[in-house]
């Protein structure tokens, strides 16, 4: 491993092509595996003549994707905007609660165990309750998604605040920084890596929250589209919607991960 790292620095630029070749070889195996799986599914579905309701071959899913592209895009955009809003809100809520916990010991002692218990409880069971509270509109999906997804951010922010080196905090105190200054200039930047760990978990939870909220009751959105397609037994359409959803999920996760890499590079060189 270290020998490779050294060679990358010493060798002239054209020799670094080797690294590219190695990376391509590394990507070829997983890509080939997925391709083989798809081809196998296609041939199996065709040779065994499986009813399309049970298992549509991948080519049919692709056709459904192309056919319903504009409808799917409309519903996906609706859900995506809710997912993004839920992520931003749960970031704010999670960091705010963690901040209150670090600033006040009494509140921390009073509420922290409660949040640990709440974190373990399967909150997904609350989905119908949010419909009772907020009606079948997007407000209920948004609030449900926030309710699911702020916990990992809260846990990450708390872990990050606790990890702040005691020396740094002592230095701040010696320099007469007050609590807020210590928080904003020292603790918050030092908590960023842990915060991103939480944020990555909660992007998936945001999507789950919005989609499940749309399962339970909705008039539009990708979850509603999936449930309707299932009710009409349009399995190819379900899979097409899932493909769009997965693409969006990976995209938003990639965005958060890219943010994490940037912050890490900025902080640790």
């Amino acid at each position, binding site marked *: 491993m270290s020998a490779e790292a050294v060679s990358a620095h010493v060798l002239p630029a054209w020799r670094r092509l080797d690294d590219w070749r190695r990376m391509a070889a590394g990507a070829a195996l997983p890509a080939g595996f997925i391709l083989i799986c798809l081809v196998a599914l296609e041939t199996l579905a065709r040779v065994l003549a499986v009813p399309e309701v049970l298992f549509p071959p991948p080519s049919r899913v692709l056709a459904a994707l192309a056919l319903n592209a504009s409808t799917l895009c409309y519903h996906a955009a609706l859900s995506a905007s809710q997912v993004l809003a839920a992520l931003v809100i749960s970031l704010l809520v999670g960091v705010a609660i963690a901040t209150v916990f670090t600033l006040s010991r009494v509140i921390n002692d009073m509420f922290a165990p409660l949040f640990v218990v709440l974190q373990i409880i399967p909150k997904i069971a609350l989905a119908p309750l949010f419909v009772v509270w907020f009606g079948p509109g997007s407000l209920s999906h948004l609030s449900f998604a926030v309710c699911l997804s702020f916990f990992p951010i809260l846990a990450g922010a708390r872990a990050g605040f606790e990890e702040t080196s005691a020396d740094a905090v002592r230095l701040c105190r010696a320099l007469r920084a007050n609590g807020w200054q210590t928080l904003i200039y020292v603790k918050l930047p030092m908590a960023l890596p842990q915060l991103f760990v939480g944020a990555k978990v909660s992007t998936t939870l945001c999507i789950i929250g919005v989609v499940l909220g749309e*399962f339970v009751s909705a008039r539009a959105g990708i979850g509603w589209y999936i449930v309707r397609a299932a009710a009409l037994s349009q399995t190819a359409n*379900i899979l097409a919607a899932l493909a769009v959803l997965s693409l969006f*999920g990976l995209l938003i996760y990639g965005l958060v991960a890219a943010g994490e890499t940037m912050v890490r590079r900025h902080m640790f060189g």
Partner: protein
Amino acid sequence: MQKPSGRARRILLPLLNCGGIVLLWQLAVSHRWISPLSLAAPFEAAKVAVGSFNILLPHILATTYATLLTFVLSSAGGMLLGALLMHWRTFRLAVYPSLVMFQLLPKIALAPLFVVWFGVNMLSRLSFAGFIAFFPIVLATLAGLRATDPLVLNLCRSLRASPAQIFWQVRLPYAVPLIMSGLKVGMTLAITGVIVSEFVTVQSGLGYIIVFASSNLQIDLMFAALGWVSLIGLLSYGAVLLFERIILIWLGAPVTAGLSRPGEAAP
């Protein structure tokens, strides 16, 4: 580390706080500050949870049974596949990216598809929940088995330990903390998957009771079912924690309680 009074405070304060919240909630509902159509009074909900126990019992048992069976099956399968992936390099290189991708995808969205495939029955619920709970266990097992200290492995090889000995006596004990972390996530995902597929299949189980009660606006029945779901969730998670503790003590490893890691939050 903590003063005795600090320790008492850390246990008493949350309990008092909890009691205060429940009392305030009860007062708020019974004085109609909050409509009883949106929030059930905790004592009423508890009365329903205990009073209609006979009616709820089959559903409680169904959810518990499905959760535990899902957990056992998916953890056995997940650990086996994890071990297989560690030993077979080519397979690992081919499959690992797909596994990570599946781990990230919002698999909950597949729930209606499982109904199309397996119908409205226990098999559909088990397979969906297993599908949800499986991936974190595989990845955690693989990560744990590959995290062995290379110096220790070198030592084993120079002492001519057989591969089987290395696996059972070195790699596996080293992997316990990560595997346990995967199992904890798997347990929370198992109950999540069971509840979601009960939402979708609407046949039996506490998820069915919750949907049924919400569509009839029987809020106290809904809260009673939510209370039972929470209890099952806490007990099953506690069981995994206990299991972890027993294994760690048995191995003579330092016991660490990692309760609030971000990845272990249940959806």
